[in-house]
């Protein structure tokens, strides 16, 4: 699972770090002062590291709950994100994390209690409300058997019925959720792309069928689930690929009970894009024509609006307009 475990000296004796070290006794355990000595150094190669990432156990300092980027959320409430982990176990070619970090190692911040305190404070500042996203810098569920993230953070939101936690994921590691009572203000949002795009660009990700099955089980157990079609990418089959995906999804899931459905275009900061294009000069996705708008780069597609409208028309055969939003 990991090539090595690096541990900040400061968290070495913590129960959470010790439990993890005990779980992987045969891996090299390497003590460092700060995770920045190992993670995201110059002269590191994300693509090579992705072949065999290490786990870094660290303590998060500074702001732990940050304002979500504009257009990230689904309503007018103030929204925030928090990242107990940096980097993702999956290897999606379109993911901005490849451009954000030069290292593919996973950083797990083990001072969960400090995150809880920060969340408590932020929720109180928002009079008990706000939307809180997990899964911006990582996939929150994918490493659940190791991190026990859900076990720790989901119950926190029981105290704040007007606040909402959204866990974004492509993982089918849902046992921890199925083992507890549903929390009505916690949403599990699963991302999908059509089959041909998933096969080409989403490496190490559970199949569409398995992800739908996971959502189905969660929905059946009373959990709120949501669907994210992000990023929208041109399929060889055109919108028909999305039609097929919608049929797969909505023949299994109860569309009326979905918390929300959203779509988002492929775009990222220019610097991230350039770094990824250097990492993958041989990848078709990063060889396509692009356009730049407000510091963000996206794929040039003159038919984008009409394709998006066509996709939405298909989608609205299954869900209501009120359930849907476009990510900016």
């Amino acid at each position: 699972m990991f090539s090595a475990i690096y541990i900040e000296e400061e968290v070495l004796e913590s129960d959470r770090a010790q439990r993890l070290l005990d779980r992987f006794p045969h891996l090299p355990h390497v003590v460092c002062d700060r995770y920045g000595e190992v993670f995201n150094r110059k002269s590191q190669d994300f693509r090579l590291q992705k072949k065999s990432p290490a786990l870094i156990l660290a303590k998060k300092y500074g702001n732990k709950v940050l304002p979500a980027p504009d257009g990230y959320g689904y309503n007018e409430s103030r929204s925030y994100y928090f990242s107990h982990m940096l980097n993702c176990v999956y290897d999606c070619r379109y993911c901005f994390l490849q451009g954000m970090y030069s290292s593919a190692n996973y950083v797990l911040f083990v001072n969960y209690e400090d995150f809880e305190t920060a969340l408590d404070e932020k929720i109180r500042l928002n009079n008990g409300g706000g939307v809180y996203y997990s899964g911006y810098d990582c996939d929150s569920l994918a490493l659940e058997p190791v991190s026990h993230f859900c076990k720790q953070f989901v119950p926190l939101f029981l105290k704040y019925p007007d606040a909402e936690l959204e866990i974004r994921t492509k993982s089918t590691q849902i046992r921890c959720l199925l083992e507890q009572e549903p929390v009505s203000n916690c949403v599990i949002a699963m991302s999908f792309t059509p089959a041909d795009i998933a096969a080409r660009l989403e490496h190490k990700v559970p199949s569409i069928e398995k992800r739908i099955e996971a959502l189905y089980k969660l929905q059946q157990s009373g959990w709120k689930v949501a669907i994210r079609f992000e990023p929208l990418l041109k399929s060889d089959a055109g919108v028909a690929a999305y039609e097929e995906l919608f049929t797969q999804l909505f023949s299994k899931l109860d569309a009326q009970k979905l918390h929300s459905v959203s779509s988002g275009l492929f775009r990222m900061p220019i610097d991230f894009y350039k770094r990824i294009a250097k990492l993958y000069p041989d990848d078709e996705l990063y060889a396509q024509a692009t356009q730049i708008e407000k510091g963000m780069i996206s794929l040039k597609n003159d038919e984008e609006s009409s394709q998006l409208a066509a996709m939405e028309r298909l989608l609205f055969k299954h869900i209501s307009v009120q359930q849907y939003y476009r990510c900016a």
Partner: protein
Amino acid sequence: MTPTMHSDHSQLRPMPVNIVVAHALEAKALIPMLQLKALQTDSGYSEYANANGLRLIVSDIGKEAVSRAVSSLAHAQSNDAGQISAWLNIGIAGHASAAIGSAWLAHKITDQRSGRSAYPPQLIEGLASCSIITVDEPEQDYALEAVYDMEAAAFYEAASKQATAELVQLFKIVSDNLINPVEEIDLKSVPLWIARQDSQILLLVDKLAELAASYNSRQYVPRVYYDICSLTHLTVNEKLQLRRLCQRYRALGREDELADINLLAKNHTKKLLSILSSAIDQPPALK
């Protein structure tokens, strides 16, 4: 029989790996193991190479010596194609309690003088690993649970300037410990200790070669790029643009469209980049 490159590996598979040892005795066991032959160079170093392109250089002892040797070999190998080699330091070292002849891959390197540490990424499985402390004088106390050597920190720093950190590794074989102190090292045993680690060394070389080849393969640029560069004068910036355009054509499966641009390059150099750039943003012509 001692395994060698010949018995375990495809002879002509490129092995872009540079091995740096401090002492000729350390090279002695590696020469037959890796089928190396002496090279005649004007670098002032003893250098060896094999048919797969693997290189070995004897740096001499100490931090400055190893830095200079890395720079020398890197300079000799510099190229325009973005191809790099992996770097591997193999050498003897001390440890308080580890058995003589035991071998360790470095997972942390600390320069005792500066106190700075570096962490070679651990992409190669199957080898025991440990921390290395680089000292300026031979160590006799081995105070910490680490291997003590005289080159690692400088080697890592110098080699990391030439290759991405994943491709820089260090492999140390214990030659002295508290029971067998450093001043009593039996030098004749050094080649033997190293030879006994042949399977680990071959694994390490093989994996490093694989990683370096994987890195280099993504730098591939269609031949036409080099043809154009030889035909016409392009600035550094123009070369970078042309290189990326050629890579994009290839990634989009449209490399054949580059076939005619040699001709264009001869007569319309200035237009070349803008023509290529606008053409790639159009759908490919139907055939």
